[in-house]
C-alpha cells in the first residue's frame, strides 16, 4: 500500500477542484480537509486495486451533502447569487464568475459536472455515488455543462492584461 502522502500528492489537487466546483470557495477547503482526514482514517482498509479517485470523490460527495444540507437548513436560497464575486469570500483564490455560474445549477447537475468533467469519473461511477441511474447522471452532467457554456466564459484570455 502506498504511503498516504503519495495519495495526497496525486489526488489532492483534483479533489480540491471538485470541492471548489461543488461547494464554492468559502466551504471548499473545509470539505477538502474533512475528506482527506476521513480518507486517512479508512485508508488501511481500502481494498487492493480499488479506484482511489472514485473512493475519494465518494467521501467528498458525502461531505458536500453535509454542507449543502446544513446550508438549506439555514434557508439560503441557492438561486440567489450576488453579482459581485467578492461576496463569496476569497475572490483572489479563484474566479468568482465561474462559481457564480456553477452556483446557479441545481445541486445534482453541479455534482455530475464536477465528478465527470473535473474528476473524470464515468457516469456509471457517478450514478453509484449520487444515486439514480447512469442515464440520469449523464443527463445531469450534459444539462449542467450546456447551461454553464451558455452562462460562463473563461477569463484566461484576459489574464495577461492583469497587473
Amino acid at each position, binding site marked *: 500500500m502506498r504511503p498516504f502522502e503519495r495519495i*495526497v500528492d496525486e489526488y489532492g489537487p483534483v479533489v480540491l477542484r471538485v470541492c471548489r466546483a461543488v461547494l464554492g470557495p468559502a466551504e471548499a477547503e473545509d470539505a477538502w480537509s474533512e475528506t482527506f482526514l476521513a480518507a*486517512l482514517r479508512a485508508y*488501511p482498509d481500502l481494498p487492493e486495486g480499488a479506484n482511489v479517485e472514485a473512493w475519494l470523490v465518494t467521501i467528498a460527495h458525502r461531505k458536500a451533502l453535509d454542507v449543502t444540507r446544513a446550508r438549506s437548513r439555514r434557508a439560503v436560497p441557492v438561486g440567489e447569487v450576488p453579482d459581485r464575486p467578492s461576496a463569496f469570500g476569497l475572490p483572489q*483564490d479563484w474566479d468568482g464568475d465561474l462559481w457564480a455560474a456553477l452556483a446557479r445549477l441545481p445541486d445534482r447537475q453541479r455534482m455530475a459536472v464536477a465528478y465527470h468533467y473535473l474528476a473524470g469519473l464515468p457516469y456509471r461511477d457517478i450514478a453509484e455515488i449520487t444515486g439514480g441511474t447512469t442515464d440520469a447522471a449523464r443527463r445531469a452532467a450534459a444539462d449542467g455543462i450546456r447551461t454553464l457554456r451558455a452562462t460562463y466564459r473563461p477569463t*484566461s484570455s484576459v489574464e495577461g492584461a492583469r497587473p
Partner: protein
Amino acid sequence: MTTGHDSALDFFGALARTDDAALGRLRERLAAAAERDGLLDIAYRTIDSPVGTLLLAATDAGLLRVAYDREDHDAVLAKLADVVSPRVLRAAPRLDPVARQLEEYFSRTRRTFDVPLDFRLAKGFRRAVLTHLPDIGYGHTASYAQIAAAAGSPRAVRAVGTACATNPLPVVVPCHRVVRSDGSSGGYVGGEQAKLTLLNLEAAA
C-alpha cells in the same frame, strides 16, 4: 478515461488557480488534524546535513527511521508503509526535536542524542547489537568483535556487521563508530565517505 475531460479542464481552469498555495496550507492542516486525532502513524521530514539529505521518520513511540539519500527515500517510505502503517504524512512538528539535535551534532555542539527511539524495525540479535552501540562514546570507535562480545555473542562478528549494515537509525544510533579490527573504517549504510565524515567530525571536536 472520459470524453471531454481534457477540454473541460481549460473551461474550468479558474478552479485550479492558486492550487499550490491552497494545497500547501491544506496539507499542513491535514497533518495537524491527523496528529490530533491519533491518525498520524508515521510522520516524516528531511533535513540537509554534511552527509547529504537525511530522511527522518517517527511513530508516536519515537524515532523510527533515519535514511540516507542513497537508500532512496521514496523506497524507504514505501517500505515503512508496508511493514508499519500506510498512514504516512510529511509533518515536521514530531521531528523537530531530533532535527534540532542533529543540527547541533553536525555543528559539534552535541555529543549524545536525547530523543525516544522506536526500535521496531530491528529484531532479535540485531536489536540487541543496536542497543549497545550508544555505549561507544562520541569520538571513540569499537571493533565488530568488541561489539559482538558486548552483546553476549563473541563469535557473532558477522552478525554484528549485518546489524550495523541494516541499522534503521544511523547517525543517531552510532554504527559509524564500529570499525574493522585493523583500524580501517569498514562498510557503512550511508557509504564509506559518510562514515569517514562522521568519524572526522567527532575526532575534530
